[in-house]
């Protein structure tokens, strides 16, 4: 993929250069006593450095997507605050933060390029600038030839690349990705992960990436924040010291396996806890399947 946004290599930033500061976030859904009451997050704090890729990983229902939505201003936390630069997040910050969602969030009634253009229109990019920027970001994800296709005509992997192009065209400093490859098969997500690593190593974006795949986390992240079971809080932050762009051979290295095992050990206990929780809440509520 040829990327024309900015051709600088990712540099390690001084620890003081923070992009996102999460401070004592707690969040609950519903009121205490409600049958739907869920305490999703408890007193979570996290610092995300400028230009790093931070993976959030944890058992399902631990609140990692909740935290992402709180950072993105799509959800107001019950208590605590998030600072992006020096601004406190009180709603979406389209000039600073772009999103790639897990589900297919492209508008099915518009073509790929119309989707990208719409995003820029919402953000307030002048009309004349939109078309070249859209072409450029579609080229960056290798979708130039599919600009006039409708999302329904693309494969799942291509749709997520189009969603990434839409986010890139917004030229924000921060990119939030909520299990962007979650719905794809193993092979496709490996290739997309590789491409993403190459693509992002050339930009200076700060990325927060939610995943439930250990391999994806180790392969992509500069640091991985491991969540505990509900109510979610950050158990440990593991640094992955490996320069970007990462090669597929990294995946078979001893280092990769060790890091993956470390993460697995940290997660294992939490996943057991989460499963017991969801089984218990199923019994209480008399329904199948816990909250996602």
């Amino acid at each position, binding site marked *: 993929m040829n990327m024309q946004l900015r051709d600088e290599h990712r540099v390690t930033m001084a620890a003081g250069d923070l992009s996102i500061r999460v401070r004592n976030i707690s969040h609950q859904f519903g009121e205490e006593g409600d049958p739907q009451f869920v305490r999703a997050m408890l007193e979570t704090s996290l610092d995300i450095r400028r230009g790093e890729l931070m993976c959030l990983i944890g058992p399902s229902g631990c609140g990692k997507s909740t935290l992402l939505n709180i950072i993105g201003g*799509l959800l107001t936390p019950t208590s605590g605050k998030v600072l992006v630069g020096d601004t406190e997040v009180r709603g979406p910050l389209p000039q600073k933060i772009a999103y790639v969602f897990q589900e297919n969030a492209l*508008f099915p009634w518009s073509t790929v390029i119309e989707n990208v253009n719409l*995003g820029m229109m*919402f953000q307030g990019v002048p009309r004349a600038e939109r078309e070249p920027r859209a072409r450029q970001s579609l080229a960056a994800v290798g979708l130039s030839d599919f600009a006039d296709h*409708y999302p329904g005509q693309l494969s799942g992997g291509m749709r997520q690349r189009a969603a990434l192009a839409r986010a890139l065209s917004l030229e924000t400093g921060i990119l939030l990705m909520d299990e962007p490859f979650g719905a794809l098969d193993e092979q496709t997500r490996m290739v997309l992960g590789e491409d993403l690593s190459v693509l992002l190593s050339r930009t200076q974006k700060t990325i927060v990436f939610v995943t439930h795949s250990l391999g994806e986390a180790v392969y992509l992240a500069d640091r991985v924040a491991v969540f505990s079971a509900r109510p979610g809080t950050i158990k440990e932050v593991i640094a992955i010291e490996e320069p970007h762009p990462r090669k597929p051979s990294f995946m078979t290295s001893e280092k990769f396996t060790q890091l993956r095992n470390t993460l697995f050990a940290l997660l294992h206990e939490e996943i057991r806890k989460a499963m017991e929780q969801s089984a218990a809440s199923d019994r209480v509520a008399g329904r199948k399947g816990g909250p996602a």
Partner: protein
Amino acid sequence: MNAQRDRSRLASRGVQIAFVVVLIAAWWIGTTVGKISPILLPNPRNVFDELVDVIWTLEFVGDLRVTLTELAIAFAISSISGVTLGYLISRSQYSMRVFEPLLAGIYSVPIILFLPLYILFFGLGPASKIALGVTTSFFPIILNTIAGFGYVERIFVMSARSMGASEYQLFRFVLLPAAAPIILSGLRIGFTVALLSILGSETIASLAGLGHRIVHLAEGMDTARMFAYIAFAVAIALMLNTVTSALEAKARRR
């Protein structure tokens, strides 16, 4: 593969045509060889001649104008009010919970039963037909509008908001296109039932219109001409339905 599909489509079209031919032949034989009274079932040849006469003399124009005017007014009222009110109701979860079951409940009532009431209110003229047409078509239109706007996937709204869409942009570029296909099928259903109920109510009690003409001819035992008018009304209804379906399909194209 394609040729095979074409051939099977051609075959089924052939069976359809054969079916109609057999039906008309049976009609023909029944009225010529058979001893069926022409007052009950006229000869197809006579019906055809009457139809040609109806069209050639432009006799149909007055009645067709009445029926189509009633339809146009009724559909304009029900589509504008149905879409507007449906949109307003879909704005809040609370009003959707209140109104959706209520409207669906009224929709299941046989609305033709209101006709005597409407004739009492509005008289025998077009007004009572318009009122009935509005009442029948309003419900499928408003219910589909609520369904269209009320159940837009949350992810579309979230992603538009995250990119900074204003309220107007959210409506124009997300809610409206997401809801359009469902609203359009509501409009098509509304149009069809409005036409049906207007023609039907004209046959029950009216002063003019295609339905009125058909009943008038039946009462005068002018059965062949009545059949000709029925065929004419069917052709008009088919044409209008084809046009609305084509418009819907065109607006839906993705």
